[in-house]
């Protein structure tokens, strides 16, 4: 092949240009420690990085939400623990005052005063706040849910916290359920709970599954929540707790136990020195206690759900971060060896270029 001078120079230009470009690219990777600096470097990886980044960010938020909800639940549980103690004490009093062997009219009067205080303490528990929020007011979190006489001013709203893409967990338990024994309303209102049994219908009827009961309904509901239009979303939003939660459970109210009434009945019985009534109130106290215990176990189950949600979220975070790193971070060893390779290529082409631009015949003519 005939070699023209221009070919040599063009070739030197082209090879050096290419080597320098490769080198710059690698150096950029080394400086940023990323192999993905723009979408066109690897379009598929770039979109996956965006996906995982969303997941990580949302995951962070979910973790934060779960943490908050857990606090709220734990504080509620703690408060209910106090309430349980109140009833233990009331029970003790009722037992000791229900016979004449250890009690008399005067001891009953003293006990009545203590019960009165227990009543006040229960109201206090009912009006417990976390930060600025009342724990047991349902959605009405900004004013005390109970007045001094134990009348409920809150509603039956359950504040649901989103714990992952699909599931929500209620972080509060409205006061009317715990204190007034109002059953939780079912959205349709067609399946009233078994009378006298204040079970949270959301609690898995077969707890032996070992699954977190509270998360199950959320999972079951998940398909229904895949609405395709905002209308459906709104419909779900409404139906979540019924249109007017206060009215829905109206007829069942009597089936639970009003803990305040239990205490005030006991107080009245003591003041009236009515041994019989005091004895009868024991059953009610047990019912009230059971009601509180069930509420606590529900809360405990939810806290459990949150704990496992937190664990899986944390695991998800780690996985997502690993994936993201795999997708966009440069492999340092590979990078360094690539740089070395390119560098030696560059040197080689510089050397050969020097030879290519050799002296011509002109240099040998005198």
């Amino acid at each position, binding site marked *: 092949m005939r070699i*023209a001078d221009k070919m040599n120079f063009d070739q030197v230009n082209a090879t050096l240009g290419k080597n320098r470009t490769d080198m710059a690219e690698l150096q950029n990777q080394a400086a940023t420690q990323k192999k*993905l600096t723009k979408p066109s470097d690897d379009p598929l990886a770039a979109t996956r990085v965006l996906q995982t980044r969303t997941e990580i960010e949302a995951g*962070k938020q979910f973790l934060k939400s779960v943490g908050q909800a857990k606090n709220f639940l734990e504080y509620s549980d703690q408060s209910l623990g106090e309430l349980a103690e109140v009833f233990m004490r009331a029970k003790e009093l009722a037992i000791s005052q229900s016979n004449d062997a250890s009690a008399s009219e005067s001891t009953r009067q003293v006990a009545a005063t203590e019960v009165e205080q227990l009543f006040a303490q229960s109201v206090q528990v009912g009006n417990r706040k976390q930060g600025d929020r009342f724990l047991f007011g349902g959605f009405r979190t900004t004013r005390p849910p109970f007045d001094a006489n134990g009348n409920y001013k809150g509603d039956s709203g359950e504040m649901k916290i989103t714990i992952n893409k699909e599931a929500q967990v209620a972080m509060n338990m409205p006061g009317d359920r715990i204190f007034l024994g109002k059953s939780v309303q079912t959205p349709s209102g067609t399946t009233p709970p078994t009378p006298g049994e204040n079970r949270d219908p959301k609690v898995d009827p077969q707890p032996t599954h070992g699954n977190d009961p509270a998360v199950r309904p959320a999972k079951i509901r998940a398909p229904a929540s895949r609405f395709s239009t*905002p209308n459906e979303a709104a419909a779900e*939003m409404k139906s979540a707790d019924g249109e007017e939660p206060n009215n829905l459970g109206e007829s069942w109210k009597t089936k639970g136990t009003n803990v305040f009434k239990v205490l005030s009945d006991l107080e009245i019985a003591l003041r009236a020195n009515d041994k019989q009534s005091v004895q009868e109130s024991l059953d009610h106290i047990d019912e009230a206690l059971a009601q509180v215990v069930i509420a606590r176990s529900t809360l405990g189950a939810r806290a459990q759900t949150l704990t496992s949600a937190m664990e899986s979220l944390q695991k998800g975070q780690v996985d997502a971060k690993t994936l993201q790193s795999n997708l966009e971070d440069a492999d340092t060893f590979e990078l360094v060896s690539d740089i070395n390779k390119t560098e030696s290529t560059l040197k080689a082409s510089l050397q050969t270029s020097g030879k290519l631009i050799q002296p011509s015949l002109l240099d040998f*003519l005198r």
Partner: protein
Amino acid sequence: MSKIHGMMDVGKRSMMNSQTALQTTGHNIANKSTEGYSRQRVELQTAEPLGMGKLRIGTGAKSAAITRTNNPYLEKQIQKEQANLGYLEGKADAMTRVEQVYNEQMNKGLNQFSTDFFNSFREFANNPESLATRTQVKETADHMTQDFARVNKQLTEIQRDLDQQVAVQVDQVNEITKELASLNEKVQMVEASGAPANDERDRRDLLIKQLGQKINIRWAEGADGNVTVTAGQNALLVTGNEAKRLDVKSTPAEGAKGEGNFDVFYHNSERSTAIRVTDQLNGGSLGGLLEVRDKTINGLLDQVDNMAYTLGSTVNELHQRGFDVYNKQGATFFELPKELKGASANLKLNEAIAKDVGKIASAAQRDAPGDNRVANAISKLQFEGVIGDNKATLDEYYNSMVGEVGIQTRRTTTEQDSQKNIVNQLKNIRESISGVSLDEETTRLIEYQKGFDASARLIRTADEMFDTVLNLKRM
């Protein structure tokens, strides 16, 4: 019988031939690096011999022509490949800029701002009573709308810049066609006298290549040596010594072209009305630029608009069903633009909400400050199929947009690289045929110089012979 005169003539002609050849060699050396130059050769032929009876006596050599060494088919192939390269260069150039709008590897972009937005609603749902979470919702919504506007603005700015580039390229096209027309004239003039117009043809070939790199052309050389160049389907740019002008003007939206972007017009004559040829330009760098400007970017703008509008309307829909802290039915969360087009630029947080975050609704019922159902529902929108026939989530929609841009950019730049290689290889072949080799020229230099010396010696010999003849008598 030969004559001493004849010898002198042969010597003289030979010296002149050598000089011509030497000058041509000099011309070659001088144009060693001239783009598009083809090396030239003096074609030497034996001169007409003299008949003297039975003898035919040679009369030396004559310079028949100076020709260039050139393969016209190769030139045509280079022209074609270079046109492809021009198209890819124009496209890649524009695409790498578009890509930067969607590059979230280094900067925060829509993906992150929308995640922030939905996260703020999650945080809001955790604590709807708090002013802080409400303010956060407001802030993230603000940032998100600003980022929608940024994407819109950057994309339209790229369109504007591309307009400017189109204008510059059209100017260059006009320059080239003007020179082509005048070269046509020169070639015709020179070749009328029978000599090949080497340098003019080289230049003309080069200009056609450059023109093809800028705009899609068809061209042919007529019997008279004139090239005729047509751009697009029927925009006759060069005929004979006449060049027709293209120009650009900002015009209303038409077809894929956006409002206010430049159209390219063809002027057949100064008096006739200009013809719009924008749609015919699908090759060369102009074709690449126009494609990105009109098809790619407008497509992306539509998608971003669609995303902004869908996001705005779905959030509004839910928000309006809720109740704010004043127990009032929720207002529209976003001020939704009237039409889809330009929605990304105009999506704004409702003024009333921006002023008073208490107007953000989280409750699904009245008198329920802790009710977070609306906030929950809005936060869930992030993972709901609300766009693209309700099949894709907003994230998916946006991510696929980024992927699309990435794929297109990557494809164009790889194609550009390989096309560059093809052109380089062809150019290499061209250089090996038409390029100047210094070694070769130096050899010629020596060769012709020796020829020149020898011819001079011939003349001296003839001169001495004359002397001898003249001195015959004195002896």
